[in-house]
């Protein structure tokens, strides 16, 4: 069965420092991997995805993620954190669902807190 793990409930980082939010996955076959962000009282926003190709993918707001097949990881990174990056981050993997459609399986989420 497909699954996603986000081992850290919360990540604290000082503004200007690099940040990493960890994600590992378990799928049969090739993984389709995604990162979403949820700001307070708002819906989920798509950040980036890995489908195929380069292991380093770039997304919105300066975020990037590195796909590592041998470690089954897809960690989210940003070189320099901003206070406005403080939010809840979800990693997700796509799995075949009803009607042969990809459905998303989400991790438990990681709260990113960036201190000024």
């Amino acid at each position, binding site marked *: 069965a497909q699954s996603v793990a986000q081992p850290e409930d919360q990540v604290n980082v000082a503004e200007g420092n690099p940040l990493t939010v960890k994600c590992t996955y378990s799928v049969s076959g090739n993984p389709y991997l*995604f990162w979403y962000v949820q700001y307070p009282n708002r*819906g989920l926003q798509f950040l980036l*995805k890995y489908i195929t190709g380069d292991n380093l993918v770039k997304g919105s707001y300066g975020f990037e993620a590195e796909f590592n097949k041998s470690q089954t990881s897809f960690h989210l990174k940003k070189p320099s954190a901003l206070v406005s990056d403080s939010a809840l981050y*979800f990693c997700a993997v796509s799995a075949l*669902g009803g*009607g042969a*459609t*990809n459905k998303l399986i*989400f991790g438990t989420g990681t709260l990113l807190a960036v201190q000024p």
Partner: protein
Amino acid sequence: SAVISQKPSRDICQRGTSLTIQCQVDSQVTMMFWYRQQPGQSLTLIATANQGSEATYESGFVIDKFPISRPNLTFSTLTVSNMSPEDSSIYLCSVEWGRGYEQYFGPGTRLTVT
């Protein structure tokens, strides 16, 4: 990407009643999805709604409790029936956009059952 709206944005309901949540997309899409996010929890898929066919429900979710309609390619509704306090959650609809496999989400409906 698609623009998705949901109504209502929030509601407070009494136990035993039902609430219908609407999801409107500004473009035609084949697949729509309904998720539940319980307080402090991750998202869980309730069902997948394909226009012109019955919705496909995930394990733990049944049609009698969460009936879904998908009358056309831009609209869907989710009804939460015979509500209990355990149904208090944020309900989100999403669409799969193009063939990029990512989904785009509506702003959510925050439901509180008293």
